[in-house]
């Protein structure tokens, strides 16, 4: 087995009038989201990775296995060990749910992905046990999409591709499927590439993110790094936020609070079920973080963290976005603070300066690890 634990993809070419020139390298674990506005080429990139679309100038290497290279090597889709979940479930209407699920399952044991995914496990994970003998025509939208996910998983993929699996669903159904996706990510050691144009899905699911715009990749890296990079559109958006992965250090049931350790600091957050040692993802919005030069005295704000100003960038009108690295030495996780230009000048803040970041609200990303 190869020790190259990455997914490399790069495709270049014209598709009608659309010019695509997108490349990225992502770790072959966790969730990598392809994020960008509609029509930016995310789906095309994914179809190229799957081999459903072929651009002559293309490269696709998954954990050292060459699926396509620029010397003409091109593995047809059916020889690539991948799973693909389309925007619409696309179940086979002439097969029962059970036979849909089993369609791609290896008929012989042997050539399976690492960590074989068992039928019973998938059926239980996705909650489709009661549906097995039904016809796809008799399922709801959410049920169909769950079966489609199960079908992809049971083909024992080494890479799971998901193209906006939630976008065709209504809000209630989205909320019903999201926990399944989180369970997938947490339970299965299966790298996932996930397309979305919803920042909420990115914040909940992504470990790694590839930002796309007009057929180009404008940034790629760990979610946290890209969220706090003021050169990229995420950090300067009105609803900019960072996602921080923390570990529960203690819980205080008297006040219903967790103490969470993140890199460079400790945060209090509303508790949900979970024991010390478990991982939780929290979301800190730029608008909820204010800055002070001195440690403030008594205040209703619980979370006051020392940090260091990394950079500042003016954004629309009279505000600035400040990137603050947590920790007195500024070596911890980065958060964003959106403050007015007037406060910035009144406080005499500058890059490199030590500050105290006051975090008004910390949202626990729901579900993460809850169902482990």
């Amino acid at each position: 087995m190869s020790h190259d634990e990455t997914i490399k993809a790069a495709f270049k070419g014209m598709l009608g009038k659309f010019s695509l020139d997108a490349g990225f390298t992502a770790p072959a674990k966790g969730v990598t989201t392809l994020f960008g506005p509609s029509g930016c080429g995310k789906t095309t990139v994914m179809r190229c990775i799957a081999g459903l679309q072929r651009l002559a100038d293309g490269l696709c290497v998954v954990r050292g296995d060459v699926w396509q290279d620029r010397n003409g090597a091109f593995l047809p889709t059916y020889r690539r060990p991948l799973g693909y979940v389309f925007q619409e479930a696309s179940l086979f209407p002439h097969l029962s749910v059970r036979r849909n699920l089993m369609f791609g399952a290896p008929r012989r044991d042997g050539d399976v992905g690492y960590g074989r995914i068992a039928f019973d496990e998938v059926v239980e994970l996705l909650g489709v046990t009661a549906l097995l003998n039904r016809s796809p025509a008799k399922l709801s939208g959410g049920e169909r999409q769950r079966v489609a996910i199960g079908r992809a998983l049971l083909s024992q993929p080494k890479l799971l591709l998901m193209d906006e699996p939630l976008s065709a669903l209504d809000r209630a159904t989205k909320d019903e499927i999201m926990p399944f996706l989180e369970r997938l990510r947490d339970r299965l050691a299966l790298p996932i590439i996930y397309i979305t144009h919803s920042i909420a899905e990115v914040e909940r699911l992504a470990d790694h993110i590839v930002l796309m715009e007009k057929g180009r990749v404008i940034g790629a890296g760990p979610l946290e790094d890209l969220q706090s990079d003021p050169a990229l559109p995420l950090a300067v958006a009105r609803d900019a936020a960072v996602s921080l992965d923390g570990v529960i250090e203690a819980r205080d049931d008297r006040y219903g609070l967790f103490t969470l350790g993140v890199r460079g600091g400790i945060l209090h957050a509303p508790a949900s079920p979970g024991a010390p040692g478990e991982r939780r993802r929290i979301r800190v919005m730029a608008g909820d973080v204010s800055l002070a030069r001195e440690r403030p005295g008594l205040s209703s704000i619980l979370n006051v963290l020392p940090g260091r100003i990394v950079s500042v960038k003016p954004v629309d009108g009279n505000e600035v976005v400040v990137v603050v690295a947590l920790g007195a030495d500024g070596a911890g996780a980065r958060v964003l603070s959106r403050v007015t230009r007037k406060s910035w000048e009144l406080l005499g803040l500058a890059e490199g300066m030590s500050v105290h970041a006051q975090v008004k609200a910390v949202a626990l990303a729901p579900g993460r690890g809850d169902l482990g």
Partner: protein
Amino acid sequence: MPIPSEVWVPIQLTIELATITTLSLLIVATPLAWWLARSRAWFREAVAAIVSLPMVLPPTVLGFYLLIALGPDGPGGAIAGLWGARTLAFTFTGLVIGSIVSSMPFVVQPIRNAFAAIGDRPLEVAATLRASPRRAFWTVALPLASPGLLTGAVLGFAHTVGEFGVILMIGGNIPGRTRVMSTAIFDFVETMRWREANILAGGMVAFAFAVILSMILIEKRFARARA
């Protein structure tokens, strides 16, 4: 009232001809329809037009060319030479070949439409689930197109039963060999045997009714199952 053998033999021959023609057509027309539905070749529609010609041509024109092709100087004569015969014209084999050509568009068209209606997505899904193109064809495309195949088979059968001009041109209306129902009716009417003509004509009406009704019912059933 017993059915005279002059009536019964053409009926048997017609059923035999239509059955062999329909089965041959399914084997020939299905891959052709698949290619017409999936290919991006520039000459695709030209091929489709050639296949559809028998629908528009007068049967006598089609019969005339088939007669030449099947005759001693055409390819049919050469093939007949393999078993020591001189020609395929005026033989049952000739009728089968002629029927295949003249009924082809009625089988190809519905199957092609059914394949086209499936779209790319189910086949892409099959490919992402490790199905080779061959397996995808057998386990996805063919079952999904089955209403079209059924329609094609029924139309092909019915059209073969009803073909008259082509049969007359290349078959010669030889009793027991090439006299089928449609030509037998013509014969009975010419010789003023109204009773026999009536039995056959009435039988054809009942058959046509049964064909159309069963097609409507089949379509409804599929529509319900896939709803």
